[in-house]
């Protein structure tokens, strides 16, 4: 089975996020004063092929995140896995 994986990474709470800060300033200067906080991270979309069980795919995703896709020193990540259609 093939899996569609979506991963989000972002800086851990408490670590200053320069990009988030800049985006917030940008939004405020456009007049969006309701914006309270902004965090910017990365979004990854993967397709994993030929893995039989969802939990195997999940394990693989976690491994990939821990090793490469996120930096555990400063980043958290979350992910969703869905079976591919078609």
């Amino acid at each position: 089975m093939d899996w569609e994986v979506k991963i989000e990474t972002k800086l851990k709470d408490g670590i200053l996020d320069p990009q988030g800060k800049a985006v917030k300033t940008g939004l405020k200067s456009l007049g969006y004063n309701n914006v309270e906080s902004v965090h910017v991270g990365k979004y990854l979309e993967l397709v994993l092929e030929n893995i039989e069980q969802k939990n195997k795919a999940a394990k693989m995703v976690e491994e990939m995140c821990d090793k490469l896709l996120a930096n555990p020193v400063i980043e958290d990540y979350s992910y969703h896995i869905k079976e591919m259609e078609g």
Partner: protein
Amino acid sequence: MKAGVVTFPGSNCDADVFHVLKNIFNIDTKMIWYKDKNIKGYDLIVLPGGFSYGDYLRSGAIARFAKVMDPIIDFAEKGGLVLGICNGFQILLESNLLPGAMKVNDNLKFVCKNTVLTVINNKTPFTNQCEKSAAIEMPVAHGEGNYYIDKEGLKELNENNQIILKYKNKKVNPNGSINNIAGICNKERNVFGLMPHPERCSEPLITPGKSDGYNIFSSIISFINKRGGKIAK
């Protein structure tokens, strides 16, 4: 003594360090290909600056898994001298040879300019020819040089005198790094990573009057010569 400079796919300061070691210091220097698994016989390994694999994900993240990194980690663990400049520093962080992590510069822009630094610790293989507390100048050129480490980590760095170079003050800190940190070493003092580029200021010709990078390389060479070309331990 023999030095090796690693070329990762996309490295672009490899030739610059090579030039300094080979032509300015007349050191036997070899380029090391990122797929090499065998790196015997070196006294110094340099991970050069530039970009590895385009650094699209995080600087140094993919390079850290290049084949050559296993023997380099091994070399470092046995006490071999490893110098990581800019992207090389980032790779050392990613591979946990040094603590902490790199974020994008505070102003989100790539910055290329000369910076004023203070030598915090001159009792290392990399700074023994520098004066302690001296203000030196070296250029930086990076987009992700905003060094971060958590509180305990910072405390440890301080306690072990692992902070080697700082930007002189907050005003001249080009990237927002914590405590103005510009370069650190490991506890054992044989792995050194720094954001500034010593190889860009080792020749009076191109940086008249400001050749402070020269002292970094001459420190390394003098250390290795004293040690007799043998790796410690």
